[in-house]
């Protein structure tokens, strides 16, 4: 690991490799996940009847036989639940009412005494469908002849930065019109025009989705679930059911991997609705692995067109991009992915002329969710290959080409705003250096070819302008600290980092800090969602503010009791010290019971609880016609990845030999955790590049199992992964920090694709770069016979 020198002094334990708070309970099996909670014999089991058709009208549903089955406690359909649900565009019912729009769309739910009985009851539910023509391709979906999937699109409630086009299948159309692309094509020395197709993939957390719901006699709902978004679930489900948010409580223990699939509301509302029919009884809905594959949020597919040109000196002059997002049947997140890819559509480059049209298209495919990277891995996959091609077309080294064009501090962005301080050039140089750019080692065998590739990336947290965080800190009798947060530890280490920040901001040892878990909307402070790589920055700011608030209370109290100026007081290692009088007092003597007044007649202070929040206040809108505006996002995290690989000429198999990741994280609060994100993200990106694709045939996933949908295993990964931390501080991040959770899988596909090209001179329309596809492409190109 290489650390950038920065001059700012930071307090302990910021920047230290503290062992994760949750490590011990996770290695002993003590850590509690949602499915581990014991509900006793009163627990009912839910199963869901799902559509076998990609697109059909529901003619009738007969549940009478299912209801009559002994052991069945409730059978639910959409009939009684007319409300709409959705994060940015409210376009779906909890259970389908009139139409089904993807294979797996829920049409009925059952609660029974056992899973077997519930399963049997599903078979007794008779649904009559009128099969409709499906939309199975996003480009076909925008044509006027395409069947309309949501005829009442214009009636749906929608966030004010999303622009659906009623009467079409377009649920959002985001535009960039910067400069004038048409006027400069003629000036270009080199032009590249390409089409890329990025397939759907699944998030594949190892813990399947699970939700347990209980509705009591008064209608109050408790939901336990594996959740990245307990507060968003409280809000969206309550709104859909027409109940108060206060009557909806979400309890979210540890999450066994999310990657976006457990954000927003996915299957949780199904459990709530089923439970509402069996008041007082907890009802558990646990997705099978097969259901996880074909009904959980997917990373939506993308058909992308790029046209870009540069002058003879290698300066990018223009880009024209068209993105057709295969968003699926509903758009929990797709509309905002469409927007994010639009306002990031230049890639991390300064380009004077950009025209982008990014379309979110309804199709009869599974529902697009926010998978790690939020559209950026898909978009960069093609964009960063075009950049490589342009460089080669004008005989320029791809690293040099990127160095010239990549964003620097103050660069004008595609939306017209200015780039904040940024360490992208350093990332590029360090990654190139580490991979040994420019030198080529001989392949390990005569039937292999070796290549190196590099790619850059940028990504901003994509969220509403006013997504907020809050936190509290509370001191116990012995001076130790409990920190309340509403963000979730989904494996990234958010709790550990929050504890480090609270310790640093208050002045206590890290070992004194606990996080109040599980996150529970009844007791935990509000947090928008654990998405967008925003916790270290946003929740971190809230935690720091809460710790500072507690600190101020303590110092004011001590100042008054000691008759000193709070300016001269400090908290060091859990002890209040005066730099003036040199008095000292441990926090345990202050925290709960306060201090006697200076004259000993009465007491000062009381139990200390600090509170803090954070919400960005500076985000402005973008012009709907041009995509231009003052500040569309809070910040961009940028970085680079480089790989060295070998292609086997006999089999087409790609073996990754080495990988380098370099990201500008502003400030690494816990460098080891940052590295772990870089490494895990690299391998997830590698897995998506080499193996993963949901094979959708007529809307039906053909490979819904780990055997047929392969993800990277322990035998696939190179041990030689280098992680480089670059630190150019974020002005409003805690100690300068910004997020890095998602970014590490953004440039992986194009870095690998560029290395494959370097090795054997072929490019594919899209991943996965399986041995078979590579071999056939090599055959086609005459590289092998």
């Amino acid at each position, binding site marked *: 690991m290489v650390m950038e020198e920065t001059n700012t002094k930071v307090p302990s334990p910021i920047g230290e490799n503290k*062992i*994760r708070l*949750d*490590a*011990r*309970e*996770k*290695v*002993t*099996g*003590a*850590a*509690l*996940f949602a*499915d*581990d909670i*014991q509900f006793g014999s009163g627990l009912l089991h839910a199963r869901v009847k799902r559509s076998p058709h990609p697109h059909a009208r529901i003619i009738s549903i007969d549940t009478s036989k299912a209801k009559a089955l002994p052991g069945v406690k409730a059978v639910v359909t959409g009939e009684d639940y007319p409300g709409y649900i959705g994060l940015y565009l409210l376009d779906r019912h909890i259970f389908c009412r009139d139409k089904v729009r993807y294979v797996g769309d829920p049409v009925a739910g059952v609660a029974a005494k056992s899973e077997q009985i519930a399963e049997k009851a599903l078979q007794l539910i008779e649904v009559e469908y009128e099969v409709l023509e499906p939309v199975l391709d996003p480009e076909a979906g925008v044509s006027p002849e395409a069947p309309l999937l949501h005829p009442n699109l214009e009636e749906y409630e929608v966030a004010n930065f999303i622009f659906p086009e009623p009467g079409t299948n377009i649920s959002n159309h985001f535009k960039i019109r910067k400069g004038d692309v048409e006027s400069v094509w003629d000036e270009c020395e080199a032009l590249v025009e390409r089409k890329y197709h990025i397939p759907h993939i699944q*998030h*594949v*957390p*190892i*813990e*399947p989705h699970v939700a347990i719901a209980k509705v009591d006699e008064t209608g109050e709902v408790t939901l336990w679930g594996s959740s990245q978004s307990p507060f968003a679930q409280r809000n969206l489900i309550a709104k859909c059911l027409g109940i108060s948010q206060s009557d909806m409580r979400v309890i979210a223990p*540890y*999450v*066994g*991997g*999310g*990657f976006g699939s457990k954000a927003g509301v996915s299957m949780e509302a199904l459990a709530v609705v089923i439970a509402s029919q069996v008041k007082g009884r907890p009802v558990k809905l*646990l997705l*099978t*692995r097969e259901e996880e594959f074909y009904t959980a949020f997917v990373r939506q597919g993308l058909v992308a067109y790029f046209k870009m040109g540069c002058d003879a000196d290698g300066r990018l002059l223009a880009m024209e991009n068209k993105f057709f997002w295969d968003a699926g049947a509903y758009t929990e997140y797709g509309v905002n992915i469409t927007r994010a890819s639009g306002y990031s559509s230049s890639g991390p480059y300064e380009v004077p002329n950009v025209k982008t049209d990014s379309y979110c298209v309804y199709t009869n495919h599974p529902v697009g969710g926010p998978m790690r990277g939020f559209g950026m891995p898909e978009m960069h996959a093609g964009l960063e290959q075009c950049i490589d091609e342009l460089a080669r077309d004008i005989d320029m080294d791809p690293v040099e080409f990127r160095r010239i064009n990549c964003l620097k501090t103050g660069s004008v962005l595609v939306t017209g705003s200015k780039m904040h301080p940024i360490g992208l050039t350093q990332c590029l140089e360090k990654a190139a250096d580490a991979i040994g750019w420019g030198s080529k080692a001989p392949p390990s065998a005569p039937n292999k070819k070796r290549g190196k590739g590099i790619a850059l990336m940028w990504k901003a947290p994509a969220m509403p302008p006013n997504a907020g965080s809050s936190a509290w800190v509370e001191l116990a009798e012995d001076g130790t600290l409990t920190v309340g947060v509403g963000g979730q530890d*989904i*494996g*990234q*280490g958010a709790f550990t980092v929050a504890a480090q920040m609270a310790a640093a901001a208050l002045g206590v040892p890290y070992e004194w800090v606990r996080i109040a878990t599980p996150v529970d909307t009844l007791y935990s402070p509000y947090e928008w969602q654990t998405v967008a790589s925003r916790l270290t920055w946003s929740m971190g700011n809230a935690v720091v503010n809460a710790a500072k608030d507690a600190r101020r209370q303590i110092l004011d109290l001590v100042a008054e009791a000691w008759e000193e100026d709070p300016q001269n007081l400090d908290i060091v290692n859990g002890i209040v010290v005066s730099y003036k009088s040199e008095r000292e007092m441990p926090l345990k003597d202050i925290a709960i019971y306060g201090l006697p007044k200076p004259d000993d007649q009465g007491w000062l202070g009381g139990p200390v609880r600090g509170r803090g929040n954070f919400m960005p206040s500076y985000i402005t809108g973008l012009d709907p016609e041009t995509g231009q505006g003052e500040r569309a996002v809070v910040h961009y995290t940028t970085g680079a990845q480089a790989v060295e690989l070998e292609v086997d000429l006999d089999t087409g198999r790609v073996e990754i030999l080495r990988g380098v990741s370099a990201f500008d994280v502003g400030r690494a609060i816990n460098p*080891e*955790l940052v*590295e*772990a994100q870089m*490494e*895990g*993200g*690299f*391998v*997830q990106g590698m897995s998506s590049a080499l193996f993963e694709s949901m094979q959708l045939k007529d809307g039906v996933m053909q490979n819904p*199992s*780990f*055997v047929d949908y392969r*993800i*990277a*295993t*322990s*035998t696939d*990964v190179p*041990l030689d*992964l280098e992680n480089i931390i670059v630190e150019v501080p974020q002005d409003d991040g805690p100690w300068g920090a910004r997020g890095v959770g998602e970014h590490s899988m953004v440039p992986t596909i194009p870095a690998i694709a560029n290395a494959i090209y370097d090795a054997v001179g072929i490019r594919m329309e899209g991943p996965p770069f399986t041995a078979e596809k590579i071999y056939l492409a090599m055959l086609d190109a005459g590289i092998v016979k």
Partner: protein
Amino acid sequence: MAFHRITFNVNGELEQADVPSNMTLLKMLRENLALTGTKNGCAEGECGACTVLMNGEPVNSCLVLAVECDGAEIVTVEGLAHDERLDAVQQTIIDAGGVQCGFCTPGILISARALLDRNPQPSEEDIRIALVGNLCRCTGYVRIIQGVQEAARI
């Protein structure tokens, strides 16, 4: 449904249970014995999250019927630490940074323990192969492999 009385040893304790014919070992551990450290990631033998030791051998407990465990000795993740002292590989995986969400961790630890018991000095390749049935979506495996290497070293 027929029930069977079985006697077996879990983590050093003798247990008796009446189990239906179709109950899996995974379900019995999690539901009857509240040993929820063993995870259900697929219930079809494909992810390794449910790995336990059965008579010293790692098995996918979702593919083993509880009735097959009559007379068997089972070790789950809860049985790895002794007297609050972590097993070496539990500690080295923590130190190597091989834990993220932790859902795969119990199965990985059991597979690693089984490997080290039968082969105290495994090569890198041995470790990779021993863990190939344990899927992890978070870590990228590198730190897990390094953790097992370190456990073999000490």
